[in-house]
């Protein structure tokens, strides 16, 4: 191995280490993390939006061919929503456009993440996993007022 090869391996390795540091920093310091695990329980499959306190909500969202229930969710600006996502039939996707909230709804499992809505507006939810012939109609909305 000559000196150039050694250098390129070192350089590539350090680049990857910088990337790794960036994602660890985001996960642990800024709390930007991947979704977490919740043991499966049938009760999560009842769609509802519960207000816990002033600015905190629990949203039980159920995906099914080819709609989200509830498909129009209203929360005030500045609220924090704990989202529990499940699927009644096949695998679905859940992407809030321009919000970097990106989840899969898998039958037999519960996906969980926490959303923060600071700015008022209409946030579109698009199903981004193929779920049958009506896949391209599967859309929801979050209205932040």
């Amino acid at each position, binding site marked *: *191995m000559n000196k150039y090869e050694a250098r390129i391996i070192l350089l590539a*390795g350090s680049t*990857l280490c910088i990337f790794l540091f960036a994602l660890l920093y985001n996960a642990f310091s800024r709390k930007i993390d991947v979704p977490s695990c919740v043991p499966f329980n049938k009760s999560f499959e009842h769609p509802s939006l519960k207000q816990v306190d002033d600015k905190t909500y629990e949203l039980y969202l159920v995906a099914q061919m080819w709609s989200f229930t509830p498909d129009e969710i209203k929360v005030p600006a500045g609220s924090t929503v704990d989202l529990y996502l499940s699927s009644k039939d096949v*695998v679905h996707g859940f992407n809030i456009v321009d919000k970097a909230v990106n989840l899969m709804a898998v039958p037999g499992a519960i996906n969980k993440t926490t959303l923060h809505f600071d700015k008022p507006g209409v946030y579109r939810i698009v199903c981004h996993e193929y779920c049958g012939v009506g896949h391209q109609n599967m859309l929801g909305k979050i209205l932040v007022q």
Partner: protein
Amino acid sequence: MNITKPFKRVILTEFFLPLTLLTIGIYHGLMQVIYRAGIIHQNSFAGLNYYQGLTLHGVINALVLTTFFAVAFGHVTISHYLKKEPPRLAYSSSLWLMLLGTVMDAYAMLTGKAQALYTFYAPLKDSPVFYIGTALLIIGSWVAFFGWIKTYIKWKKENPDTKMPLAILGTFVNFTIWVVCTVPAAYSTLILLTPWAAGWVERVNVPLTRMLFWMFGHALVYFWLLPAYIMYYTILPKLAGGKLYSENAGRLAFLLFLILSVPVGVHHQFSEPVFTPGTKLFMAILTFGVALPSFMTAFTIAASLEHAGRKKGARGWLGWMLHLPYFRSDNFLFGYLICGMILFIFGGLSGIVNASYSLNAMVHNTAWIPGHFHMTVAGPVFLSIIGMSLLLYGKLSGKPIQFKLLATIVPYMWMLGMVFFSHGLMAGGLMGEPRRTNLGMTYTNPDSPLFNQHWVPTTTSTLIGGIIMSVAALLYFISFFATAFGKKTQPAVLELPESEPLHPEKPVAILTNLKPWLAVMGVLILFAYIPALNSVFKYSVPVKGQYQIDSPVPENPKPAQKAKQTKSDQHTNAKDHAKAERSLSRVTNLVVLRASSPTSLDEPLLSARLQDTF
């Protein structure tokens, strides 16, 4: 070297058949960009619907073509370097198994019995014919590998002091990864999904099948890629007129692929429930690790090309880039390999974005993802496959290559198309454009209430790119089929261009012994997948119900005994009943849609949308 007739016939079939099927694969690729750009606002075109086309596109291009080519190219590499043919039983039965599997898959897809895409995620159901066909295709490729091992052992006995040639190491690493990663896929299709699809088992654990699929699914991309890497190390320097900068670097790169290709599958599942953040982070780190051999390859090959350029009188830092044999019809393969490499720079970098754990939330399942992987699988992989197939087909059949000029410009045109194609997909993906979606029905249909104007320019760019790529593919097919149906004028030979190392290198002990690497591979797989498997059983449950793509009502398979008792006419009644029930449910769903649709819509518009849907 000269080869026997049956061996020659097998290899030629393994080039010809998948390239013939590829015409269907490319056609459906073109159709998808047309649908997605909103040119067609329909479910189907010419008898095949969008998702059926997508299934065909994925299975033919990414499974059939790549597997057949890896086997055929492996046959050529093994017999070229070891000067021996593999055992006839192995190569013939391998071809027959792969052929049978492909016919079963093609039947299931073309008749609409398999429309769940090439990822076949349960509980969408495909016919058991599809699952078994896919498994046979894979097992056929194993059989070829077992034949090569036997040939190698024989060769090693005759040449105890010669080290394993780099191309052979690459081939063996590739097929070792392949055999290891296809075991979970075979388990999933044969043990979990086939009995379930046949109705013998009621429930299936969806997260388990998904984990097993991606354990296979990511290693699969290295199985596609490594034949291209073998060409980059052992052929490209020669074609460029230079020498391989370092052979040991190549060996290290292949061995790093061996240990890191399989235990990274969960990085396709960062957005999923079931796996803990710890498992996801561990696989993200290993994925960064597997980027390292690609960085090394980029350096080694660039250094080899620089050497070639300087030999031809290039000056300055980057002058060598201008002194390479572009657009030379007597050296057309160079264009295929270099264009693939250029695309792979961007494919690789965007892959690091996808692998980056929480950053993946920006891009997961959006159009960004096909934008990324078309620069890998439809970049270096596809271009090296079609370029090498053409070259070897000509040599092995003894038929001169026809329309060489067309074949020469194909890779450059393809690369140009890819610029528009991938840019459109990636830009759209960053704005939330979903992948695997018939956008033309709704999101890019101005008459639909779901219309999103931000995705029009991006899908249009994708359309332009897709058209250029399809024209390039057409030119390639003209050249390939004219060659294949041409007349034999030269003696048939089996030979590969072979690049020499730039300077003699001392053999490094750790790079010539596969055993410690295999052990590390095993350990890493256990470390990665035992916690993953543990989470699957802790956090998920198997579910009932099988779904056809056109109905939200599950099909409940009858218990096997009942079905036997039912007479044929009653059986038909039951079927009709199920059909009626399903169409009823479609109507119900329609009503639900109507009730839950956004309020401010015009009624005629809404009903138009509903009619479009069903």
